[in-house]
Each structure stands twice: as C-alpha cells, then as structure tokens.
C-alpha cells in the first residue's frame, strides 16, 4: 500500500512540482464552463425580461387552456325570474344537443300562476336560449290589462359537479356544497348576491354584492349573480367527435348507428344511411374532419414535392459542384456558391416571397422548401461525391468506358444510398417545417392551426391537429428510418 510520510511527500512534491500543482485549466475548466453558462443564462434572463414576464403571467389561464385540450364544457344558464320562476337554458351551440336532460342536473317542476308581460320584453328575456322548458308565449294584441296564466316552471335545480360538490338553486338562494363546506348565497333577483358567513377558499367575490365564482377544479365552475347562475360543467374527452348535434346520428350509441347503417330505414330519403353517416362525420362542424385532413395532406404534399424536386435538381448540379468530378474550378465555385445562396436566403424569406407571388397555398410552401433544400441537398450531395473512393472509378475508366458510363458505374453505386438517405432525412424534417411555413401563409395544416390558436378557444381542435401532425411525423420517421437502414444496412435504434 501507498503509505507515505510527510517528508517523503515533500520530496516527491519537490521532484515533480508541475504534476503536484494541478494545471490551472484541468481544475477550473469545468467550473469555468458552468459559470459561463450560468452567467449567460442570467444575462438572457435579464435581456428578455423573463423574470418579469413569468411573474406577471396568469398561470391559471395556462392551466385552464391546457385543461381545455382534453375536456369540454356544457354551459347551462339557470335564470331566476323576479317572481321566483326558474328557467334552465343552453347556449345555441352548446355541445349537449337539442334535447338536454343531463344526469348531473335534477329539476323539480311545479305549476305557477304568472303575470304575462308585454311580448317584446318576453321575447327579450328568452332570446339566446333555445330548447328551454319555458316557451315564449305567443304574441298577442297588447292590452292594458296584464294577463296571468298558469304554467309549469322549475322550482328547484340541483347541479352535481362531483360526488362531494353540488350546487342547488332555489328562488331566493343558491346553496353550494363542496367537500363538507357549505356556502349559502342569497340572491335578490336583481344584481346583488350576499354570502351568509365567510367565503370558503374555493369561492371568490370581488366586492360585497358582486357576482360570486365558485370553482370545482377540473369538473368545472359556476358564476352566480343576483338573477342567474351560469354553470360550466366540465368533462374529460372530446365531445361530439364523430357526429355533431345537428346530425341525425347525434347521441346514438355505436351499436345503434351500426344498426341504422346496416339495416335501418333511410333517415334521409335522398341517400343511404351510410352515405349520410360518412357525410355527417366528414362535415362535422365542430371538428371539420375533412377539412383538417385535406389541410394535413396539403402539408404532406408540400414537404414531399418540395423535397423530391429539390433532390432531383440538386442531383445533376452536385456533379458540377464536386471538385473530383468536374475539373473546372470556376464551375465548382459557381455551383457551390449558388447552393450556399439558396441555403442562406432562409426558408422564411423564400416562403414570404412565394406567398406574395402565388398567394397562400401549398404551391408557395412547396416552392420555398424546394428553393432552400436544393441548396442544402446540393451541398450535401457534392460533399458526399468529394469523399468517394476513387478506385472503382479508375476501374471503370480502365476498361475504356465513356465519361457518362464512368459516373454511372464507378460513382453512382457509391453515392446513391447516401443521396437517398439524406433526402429521406430532409423529407421527414420538412414535414415539420411545412407546418410552420404554412402558419406564415403557405397554407396547409399550419395555417389552420395558427388560425385556431389565435382565437384562444379551440383548444380541443388544436390538440386534435397536433396529434395528427405528431402521428404523421412519427410515421414518416419510421418509414424513412426503415428505408434508410435497408439502404445502408445500418441497424436501427
């Protein structure tokens, strides 16, 4: 074992001073690099004002947006009239469909004597609600005497958000239970809400008398003011993904739909149920399947044609650019600089110019990809050519073959797999680039995504498109990996 006394140590230190004192950079290289990165990140933190932005960001919005990727809402409004009659209505395009009777809401109905007011105000009261149990009274000649009539109204409405959370509306108060805590709010049929007792943590009210918002986490929230309660009942999943509310197949189970398609009576006399179902699915107004798929196809075509044509043009040019093939320095240099020019005038610039020239659409995107990648592929191809092994060429030349034949048999077999493999790489990565180019105006799914994003409301549709894009990229990734490994015989990871 190495047991040394102090004097022996000193002796060694004296003999090898350089080795004993560690070289400065050997010790400090790693800490210095770490420091440099840390300093740079701090600098950027300041440069972009990241801290400030993060501090002022409303993270609840981010959470709620993210939640909307995989959830949907029903939004009934429970209105309390001055005389205590309760009405439940849904917005016109609510995904719940035309005949709502959800299991999470129970209504107690009863008869009630009501004064009928002037028809104008009656119509105003019910506007915006369809399929409400309360039907607007028929218009009748205006009389001085207000009439009364008996009608069926809701006396009590109960909404169950979760097993532990519910909200009960009665004519003069709203009671909210959540996890054993109870909040009782009295409503004055006008604009004032009063809480009895202190507000629990899940309820917020800006000022006394103002509307109260009660939150139930992922299962929704509700807003209570003096004369109405707006419910946002949230569910996981994508609603009406197959058939929208105005399809004849809405609300039917898979078995029922299948039965109708196979042997049911025609719902629309003009065409078969199958055609109707397919049409309803493709033109589903909230999901727009056909349009989304067409746009996706546009993006795929953009990448495919752009890359393919780029490869086809780069292919002959790279022989001119390669030093060892074309022995003319001027020709080499001109072609190479041309490639560099195309690469460096970025895809962005090409895309903006071509959208100006051809208008938005796949042709512009295609042209942008084509112009950029002719440069990139040309450069790659010519580099591959310059790195080839010269012996096969000499062999073919030695049998007295014509120059074209020399390239065909002495050069091509070596570089073709490399060319195809590089092109496949670009095809795959351009599928992604085509999305963003599209967003800038070249059309395709990118533009559709971008438009959907601008509204900040269509998150499920956005997620749908994202999944389609990721799926497409995965599939192309797999195809191009498989083709590549067959070409080069390299094992896949």
């Amino acid at each position, binding site marked *: 074992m190495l047991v040394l006394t102090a004097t022996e140590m000193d002796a060694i230190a004296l003999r090898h001073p350089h080795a004993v004192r560690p070289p400065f950079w050997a010790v400090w290289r790693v800490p210095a690099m770490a420091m440099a990165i840390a300093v*740079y990140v701090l600098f950027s933190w300041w*440069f*972009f004002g*990241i801290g400030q*932005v993060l501090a002022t*960001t*409303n*993270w609840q*919005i981010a959470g709620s*947006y993210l939640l909307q990727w995989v959830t949907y809402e029903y939004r009934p409004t429970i209105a309390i009239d001055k005389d205590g009659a309760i009405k439940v209505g849904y917005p016109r395009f609510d995904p719940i469909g035309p005949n709502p009777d959800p299991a999470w809401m129970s209504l107690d109905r009863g008869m009630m004597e009501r004064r009928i007011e002037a028809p104008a105000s009656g119509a105003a009261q019910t506007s915006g609600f369809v399929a409400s149990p309360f039907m607007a009274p028929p218009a009748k000649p205006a009389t001085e005497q207000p009439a009364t009539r008996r009608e069926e109204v809701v006396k009590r409405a109960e909404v169950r958000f979760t097993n532990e959370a519910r909200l009960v509306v009665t004519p003069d108060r709203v009671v909210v239970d959540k996890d054993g805590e109870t909040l009782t709010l009295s409503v004055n049929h006008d604009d004032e809400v009063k809480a009895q007792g202190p507000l629990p943590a899940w309820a917020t009210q800006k000022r006394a008398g103002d509307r109260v918002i009660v939150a139930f986490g992922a299962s929704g929230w509700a807003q209570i003011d003096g004369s109405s309660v707006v419910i946002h009942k949230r569910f996981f999943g994508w609603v009406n993904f197959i058939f929208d509310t105005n399809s004849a197949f809405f609300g039917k189970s898979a078995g029922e739909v299948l039965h109708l398609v196979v042997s049911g009576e025609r719902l629309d006399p003009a065409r078969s149920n199958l055609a109707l179902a397919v049409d309803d699915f493709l033109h589903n107004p909230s999901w727009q399947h056909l349009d989304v798929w067409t746009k996706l196809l*546009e993006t795929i*075509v*953009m990448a*495919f*044609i752009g890359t*393919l044509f780029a490869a086809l043009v780069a292919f002959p040019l790279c022989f001119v650019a390669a030093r060892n093939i074309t022995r003319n320095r001027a020709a080499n240099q001109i072609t190479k600089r041309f490639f*560099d020019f195309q*690469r*460096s*005038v*970025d895809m*962005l*610039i090409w895309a*903006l110019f071509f959208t*100006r*020239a*051809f*208008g*938005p*659409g*796949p*042709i*512009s995107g295609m042209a942008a990809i084509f112009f950029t990648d002719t440069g990139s592929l040309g*450069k*790659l191809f010519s*580099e591959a050519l310059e*790195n080839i092994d010269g012996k096969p060429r000499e062999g073919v030349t030695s049998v007295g073959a014509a120059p074209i034949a020399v390239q065909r048999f002495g050069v091509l077999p070596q570089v073709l797999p490399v060319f195809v493999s590089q092109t496949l*790489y*670009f095809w795959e*990565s351009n599928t992604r680039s085509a*999305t*963003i*180019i599209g*967003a*800038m105006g070249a*059309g395709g799914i*990118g533009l559709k*995504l*971008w438009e959907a*994003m*601008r509204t*900040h409301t269509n998150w499920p549709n*956005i997620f749908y498109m*994202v999944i389609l*894009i*990721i799926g497409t*990229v*995965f599939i192309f*990734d797999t195809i191009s990996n498989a083709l590549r490994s067959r070409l080069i015989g390299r094992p896949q*990871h």
Partner: protein
Amino acid sequence: MPNRLSDRAAIIERHWREQARTRRLYTLIGGGGLIVVVALSLVFANEANAGKFFERLPFFFDFTKDLVPRDWLEVLRAMFDLPSPYDDGSLKYNYPEGRYLVTADLYIPEYIEKMLETLNIALLSTVIGALFGFVLSFLAARNMMPNALVRGVARRFMEILRAFPDVVIAGFFLAVLTLGPIPAIMAVSIHSIGALGKMFFEVVENADMRPEEGLRAVGGSWIERVRFALVPQVLPNFASYFLLRFEINVRASTIIGAVGGGGIGELLRLSISQGHGAKTISIVILLFGTIVAVDQFSAWLRRRLVGGDAFLPAT
C-alpha cells in the same frame, strides 16, 4: 467466344435474365407509382392554392416592383436608421424611429438590434436544449441505462418534443404570456431538447465502453462513470451537434418570429406585406449575412472539434 453455352452456364444465364426482368418490373412499378403520386400531388396542390400556378407564373416577378427602392442608398439608410430624404411621415420612410438608444446620441439600429435579439433567442434555446438533452441522453442510451423502462420513457419523451409542432408551442405561450420573445424561446428550446437529446444519445451509444468498464471496476458511481469515462469522449461530438443545432435554430427563431415571436422575422414579414422595398431588402441582406456568418463560423469550429464531417444532416 463459344456460341453455345454449357448446360450450367445456360441455367445461370436464364436466372440472371429472370432476375433482371423482375428488377426491371419493380423499378417500373415503383417509378410509375412515384410519377402518379407526384402528378396527383401537383394537381391537388394547384387546386388547393389560392393563386393557380400557370395563371400566376407570368406575374411571378410583379411583386418585386414594390421592392425596388427609390434609390439604393435607401437600403443603407433603412439598415442603419438614418433619416431618409423622401420622408413623408408615412411608415415607409420612418427609418430613424426604431432606434435603440444606448446613450442620448449613440444608438443601435433597429434591425441590427432585432437581429441580435433573434440570434440570442437561438443561442439561449440551443443552450437550454443542450443542457436538458445532455441529461436525457444518458438516460436514453442503452449502454448507460440498463433499465429499459427509464430508457423507453426518455426516448418517447424526446420523440414527442421533437415532433411537437413549434407553431403550437409558440401559439400557446403567445396566448398565455402575450407578446415578447419568450414564446419563441420556448418553442425553439423544446424542439432543441428533443433533437439534441436524440443526437447526443446516439453519440453516447457509439462511445467506447472500455474506459467505463475500467471505472466500474474501480468502484465509481454512475455519475462518476459518466463524468470521467464518457464525457471526455463525447464532448467534442456534443459540441459539434450543439453548433449545428445553433445554425438551425437561428433560422428557426427567425421563422417563429415571423409568426408572432418578435425579433427580425416579424419585421421582415411586416415590411414584405406592406411593400416597404428598402426595409425589406435591408432586412434580407442582414439576415443573409448573419446566416452565412453563423454557418461559416460554426463549420470552422466544428472542423476543429471533430475534423472531417463538417456538415451533418439536419433533423
């Protein structure tokens, strides 16, 4: 040469001909299929496009008329924020307006400042991508992570980050954070984590494992083995991929800028769409110069780091 082949030679001859025929058939089917697909694609693209290709082609260069500045010095004035003699108060000639004042008299011209911002977005995103990709790569490499579950999770995670459309990331953060460069940083970084992580772990998997075995025999822990046996080996390659990704990210952050992420991209899109010739040309020149400079610098550095393979496929 003998005219008649022996029996065995005849069999070989026949096989060779049969093989050649099948090969030609496959080539024909493949080539024919490709041509049909391309033709259909072109028709489809032409249908879907707003302007039709052959209708628009004669007017292809029309828009360049808008781009020609009144005099070519205008380009320089636009680039360096110098006042223009044609200034009529419109947006087209208000070059000095965007000056970024350092002191009362000293300023950085707007486009140069925005170009630097875009470059910095690219650099920061690449740094973030490299830091996370570094950690992930060792978790995803077969030779460093025997646990298949951890490996699988790390790889799938990186694949999703890589395939996630940057428009959506940028758009999402634009919705949450409002304007500014952070959405662009997020979008580019997230993609970089996936892309660099993948390249890094392939480097790690190809590393020589003998030093690692040596340190395992010494009793080194996982972190020590990574630090001393692998990092010295893989660092030059990592650095090379870092530079390559930086090149790509300069372009990516310009594009993201154009869809609302700030930086020079946004200015370019605005000035093209408004037909401000001098401004557009000066931005294009600036962008072109920057990209050339970044590419050249990174190619030079990469050649020094790893020799030959200076230009690697971009994913």
